[in-house]
């Protein structure tokens, strides 16, 4: 049985009709992980009890019990989400030996829905990176070409799905960390609207930007998983009660009358010609499916990256203050408490994390707060307003997800600014708090290209509709790396 291309939907149908057990399914994935993970390094840990969990679901299903929406489906979890009793390190040395004391809300919800928690996916240290090279557990490689990066920071999650190790993985997205690796690995990635999914139990990077979302093979699968993890949680004050939920069965694939905006600011210099051609061909396909394409303008788009690189490090420098070497993880002893903090953090954090903490401390420090942080919050308002205005005129906005396909391992690692520029198309959705979906739309030199849809707040449904219609008309998402 080839599980490498199987969707959640197909696996559930087979299990419900009795053609497949969860144990068989999980076993097939375990075989693939055993054969391939040493080259991809997508998983940093595989749970020992997965077959046991699967057998339990099979037993319950066999006697006609309700086993949940994801009953028997294996899922990978990014290493920054807490699972009771599992190691949890955010790809960092500073959390060496740390174990999750409780489950993140998304984990509880997945378990209640019958999902099998397969293991921890690799990531850039504290989700600070776009290539999954900065992990303490070593770099993850791109399943399409193992000399290339998988993107990041949820590179382990995206590579695990692309390599056929699991049908779904959770990622987290602060400036593109779900969508960009999904694009570079040829799979689907969704960053939900800010507030849609609880972050309780997710190690915070930038609290006003972070969201958890699914990485899958099909758009319909992403909708199935979102429905399980979304909704209000008393443990996350920013999470909201939803009036309109996403019912995957309701995905309507007729795009007649839909208006899609093409922002002129996104199709300028810096974009790979092959990527541009693939995206424009996808736009033609959406036209053939009935959508109307409208040229729009997002005048402040060029300031998004700069605003992001003030707001994100400022919030991160504060959030990462908790890593003091006392309550969890790595500890390095100094002469006194202050010195122990400095040593623990100096030795335990990698260079990019230290850079961002220092950048945040600087822009928040006395005399610089107004010029940097306050200014960036104002620019963030302008960026959000651009999207609010544009989305009055159109139902969704279409852009590339990433300006290039996957690049070589090591190529941008020592040049932070060049690395940051790879997130130029994804960052705005986080600043504007809107949902965004990346869908595979072609190849350049045998490496996947991603198409991004951005929509109105809490209107993931429109993105699913567009993505599902596109996937019905194309077969990019059915291709697998050899």
């Amino acid at each position, binding site marked *: 049985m080839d599980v490498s291309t199987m969707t959640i939907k197909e696996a559930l149908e087979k299990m419900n009709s009795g053609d497949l057990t969860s144990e068989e399914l999980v076993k097939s994935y375990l075989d693939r992980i055993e054969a391939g993970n040493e080259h991809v390094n997508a998983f940093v840990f595989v749970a020992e009890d997965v077959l046991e969990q699967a057998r339990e679901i099979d037993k319950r299903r066999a006697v006609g019990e309700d086993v949940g929406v994801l009953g028997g489906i294996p899922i990978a979890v990014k290493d920054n989400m807490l699972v009771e009793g599992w190691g949890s390190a955010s790809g960092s040395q500073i959390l060496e030996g740390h*174990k999750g004391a409780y489950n993140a809300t998304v984990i509880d919800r997945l378990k209640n829905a019958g999902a099998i928690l397969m293991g921890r996916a690799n990531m850039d240290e504290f989700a600070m990176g776009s290539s999954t090279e900065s992990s303490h557990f070593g770099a993850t490689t791109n399943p399409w070409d193992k000399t290339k990066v998988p993107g990041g920071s949820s590179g382990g999650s995206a590579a695990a799905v692309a390599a056929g190790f699991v049908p779904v993985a959770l990622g987290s997205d602060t400036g593109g960390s779900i969508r960009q690796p999904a694009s570079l690995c040829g799979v689907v990635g969704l960053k939900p609207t800010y507030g849609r999914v609880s972050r309780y139990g997710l190690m915070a990077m930038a609290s006003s930007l972070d969201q958890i979302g699914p990485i899958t093979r099909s758009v319909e699968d992403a909708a199935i998983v979102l429905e399980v993890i979304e909704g209000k949680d008393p443990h996350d004050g920013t999470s909201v009660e939803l009036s309109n939920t996403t019912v995957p069965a309701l995905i309507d694939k007729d795009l007649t009358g839909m208006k899609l905006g093409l922002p002129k600011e996104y199709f300028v210099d810096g974009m790979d010609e092959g990527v541009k051609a693939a995206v424009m061909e996808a736009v033609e396909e959406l036209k053939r499916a009935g959508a109307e394409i409208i040229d729009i303008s997002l005048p402040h788009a060029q*300031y998004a990256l700069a605003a992001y690189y003030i707001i994100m490090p400022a919030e991160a420098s504060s959030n990462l203050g908790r890593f003091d070497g006392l309550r969890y993880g790595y500890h390095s002893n100094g002469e006194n408490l202050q010195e122990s903090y400095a040593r623990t953090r100096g030795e335990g954090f990698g260079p990019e994390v230290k*850079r961002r903490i220092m950048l945040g401390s600087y822009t928040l420090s006395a005399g610089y707060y107004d010029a940097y942080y306050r200014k960036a919050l104002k620019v963030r*308002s302008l960026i959000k307003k651009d999207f609010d205005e544009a989305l009055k005129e159109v139902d969704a906005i279409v852009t590339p997800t990433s300006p290039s396909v996957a690049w070589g391992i090591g190529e941008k690692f020592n040049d932070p600014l060049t690395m940051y520029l790879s997130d130029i198309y994804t960052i705005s959705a986080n600043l504007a708090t809107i949902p965004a979906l990346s869908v595979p739309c072609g190849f350049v030199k045998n490496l996947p290209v991603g198409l991004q849809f951005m929509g109105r707040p809490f209107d993931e449904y429109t993105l699913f509709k567009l993505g599902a219609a596109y996937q019905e008309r194309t077969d990019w998402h059915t291709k697998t790396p050899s």
Partner: protein
Amino acid sequence: MSLSNEEIRHIAKLSRLHIDEEEIEDYREKLESILEYVEKLQELNTDDVPELQHAADVSNVFREDEVQGCDSAIRERIVDNFSNREGDLLKVQAVFPGITNGSGSAGENRTQ
């Protein structure tokens, strides 16, 4: 945007990060290039623009201030994560050096 090595040392201190002397130059160069890039925000006139304060359209989410119990297994796992402990207590170096409490050994304070 230029930073002095002294400023880098100061920011590292604010951040509670030990940085080796030989690393300072590299941090200075990279932080400078990022600060130079974000400088482009100054092109925009934002005098009349409000700051985006709350990403979700909610603020001041309150709940009743009541003591909620902690599952004993969770409590145990939290305590197990401590890097240094005495029984169930987190053991740390003195927060105010020079002051010792009656029961602890010199230079060590206890907190829970």
